[in-house]
């Protein structure tokens, strides 16, 4: 594999509201190579978005606390001051948000909004050159450059998301954080956007962290997959490893697959995971998943859960005990 672009070492994020401490992200270790696409999968409250926001230092300053290291090209983002991180935001790491309706400023033309990012990160660039690049980027995301003089409300949801993507890639970032980029879109539009993103990624060769709850999109788009639950990465591996149904998986991963209504099979009932995702303010002892786990054992209910490793693949579950040296 290529060289490492991003490495998270023991990343933890805590929020404090009304005196209650929520442990949103707990001891996350993650490595991302250049040009790699990582799918970060999990349900609401699993800490996916918090992880992404911490990479850009976008978490609320006074109510959140970040521990651990975020090494981006060898430098720790967590230790950067405001000026340093500003130089990285938008130019080296950029983010696509879930809701295209509210992420665009309604009072500026879309062309101006794209041009803005280019101007911020390229001082002294000529206006002519900016215009050229805006046209170029719009073409890349499949919008005719002639529409750059229009306002966001004149675009449909799918088109707006394309513009958001255009803004995100305007400076050729090394890392693109896509936070549920297609969740707000219709299926047919989602298919268009995913296809476009895949082509763009091939062209730009940036790394992507795709945050989603949809395993279907992951199967179509990603190289590596990390499953998050209660702020922890409970299973990590290549797409092939995670989607190989002949191998054992973390019970939560298996549950996720079981919950998806499959249009190719004829089943009358789904196999849901019972129970609910835990409140990050009151995480269960031991393995955070144990109250919902069908294979829960006595040992799961307290203490640290060992991580089973096999090359780059890892899984945090007692069921894998003895198969490999625990860390």
């Amino acid at each position, binding site marked *: 594999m290529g060289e490492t672009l991003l490495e998270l070492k023991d990343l933890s994020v805590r929020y404090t*509201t*009304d005196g*209650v401490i929520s442990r949103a992200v707990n001891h996350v270790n993650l490595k991302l190579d250049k040009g790699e696409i990582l799918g970060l999968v999990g349900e609401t409250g699993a800490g996916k978005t918090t992880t992404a926001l911490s990479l850009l230092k976008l978490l609320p300053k006074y109510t959140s606390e970040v521990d651990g290291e975020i090494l981006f090209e060898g430098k720790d983002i967590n230790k950067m001051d405001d000026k340093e991180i500003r130089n990285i935001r938008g130019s080296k790491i950029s983010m696509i948000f879930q809701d295209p309706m509210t992420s665009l400023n309604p009072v500026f033309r879309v062309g101006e909004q794209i041009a803005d990012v280019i101007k911020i990160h390229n001082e002294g660039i000529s206006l002519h050159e900016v215009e050229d690049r805006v046209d170029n980027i719009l073409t890349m995301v499949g919008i005719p450059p002639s529409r750059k003089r229009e306002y966001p409300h004149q675009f449909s949801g799918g088109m707006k998301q394309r513009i958001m993507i255009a803004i995100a890639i305007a400076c050729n970032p090394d890392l693109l954080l896509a936070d549920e980029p297609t969740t707000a879109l219709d299926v047919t539009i989602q298919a268009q956007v995913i296809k476009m993103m895949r082509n763009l990624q091939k062209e730009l060769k940036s790394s992507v962290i795709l945050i989603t709850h949809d395993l279907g999109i992951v199967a179509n788009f990603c190289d590596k997959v990390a499953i998050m639950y209660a702020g922890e990465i409970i299973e990590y591996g290549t797409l092939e490893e995670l989607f190989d149904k002949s191998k054992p998986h973390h019970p939560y991963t298996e549950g996720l697959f079981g919950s998806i209504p499959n249009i190719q099979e004829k089943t009358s009932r789904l196999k849901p995971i*019972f*129970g*609910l995702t*835990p*409140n990050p*303010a*009151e*995480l*269960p002892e031991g393995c955070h998943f144990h*109250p*919902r786990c069908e294979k829960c054992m006595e040992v799961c209910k307290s203490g640290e859960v060992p991580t089973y490793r096999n090359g780059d693949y890892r899984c945090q579950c007692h069921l894998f005990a003895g198969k490999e040296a625990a860390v």
Partner: protein
Amino acid sequence: MANVSAAANTPTKAKKVKKNSQGAEVWSRLKNRKLAMIALAGILLVCFIALISDIVYPYQKWAIEQVASNKLLQPFKDGSHWLGCDHLGRDMAARIFHGSRVALLIGVGSTLISLFIGSVLACICALYGGLADMIIMRIMDILSSVPGIIISLAICSGLGNGIWQLMTAITISGVSYHTRMIRSYSLSVAQMEYVESSTALGGTPTHIMFKHLFPNIISIIIIQCAGNVSGNILQVATLSFIGLGIKPPRPEWGSMLNEGLTYMMRSPFMVWVPGIALVFTSLMINTFGDCLRDAFDPQLKGKA
């Protein structure tokens, strides 16, 4: 917060989760704000003063009677007139105490009345819409196109001076503002799916108004109320200052300020005393209003 994470699968005999109403939640948050408590104490102090003014300073003897020998008596010179006396020899402390009654009566009274009228009109607008909405809003447009102070001036000069006239004037000038504000909130509540669901269950507009609309805008009404009281107290003072509203010799902070103006150079306390009373009261009410807003703010609420 409810113990959401408690294992949902294990059949529990856990006690029913306690009901913690919004009122209790807001109060507990207010209790923890020092500023809110100071402001509340200030407001209670003013109310207390208004209540006991008749006992401490009987109206006729202290607030009205002119004692020529006490003319422009400086404060802290005489034990029985600790805030001094005005140009006619009336006790300043007594006049301030009695003035607080006028301020509170009109400030709170006109706010409550205009808010009540405003909320009823607003709910009618939001629930029935159509023609009723249009007629009410056009009337409000007309009302709000004239500045509040001009309306008050017109009513006071038409109806003459007096507490009730002044209250009517201030109430009317407030109605259009409240109706507008509450209507916009009601409209957003009326669009919520729980209102639609209530309709689907067979709920009548009155049922929806009392069961869903009011409970959901009450916090906004309370916050508005707090802000409005201090505004109205200032408006009473303004009108009295220019000689409208309260009939002399009834003490009122605005008219006291006006009287003091003439003697400002020689006896600045005549301006200072009512001025401070006015500023203190409106500051306390405004501060409390701000704290209330913070306490109601859903953003501070922990997310489940």
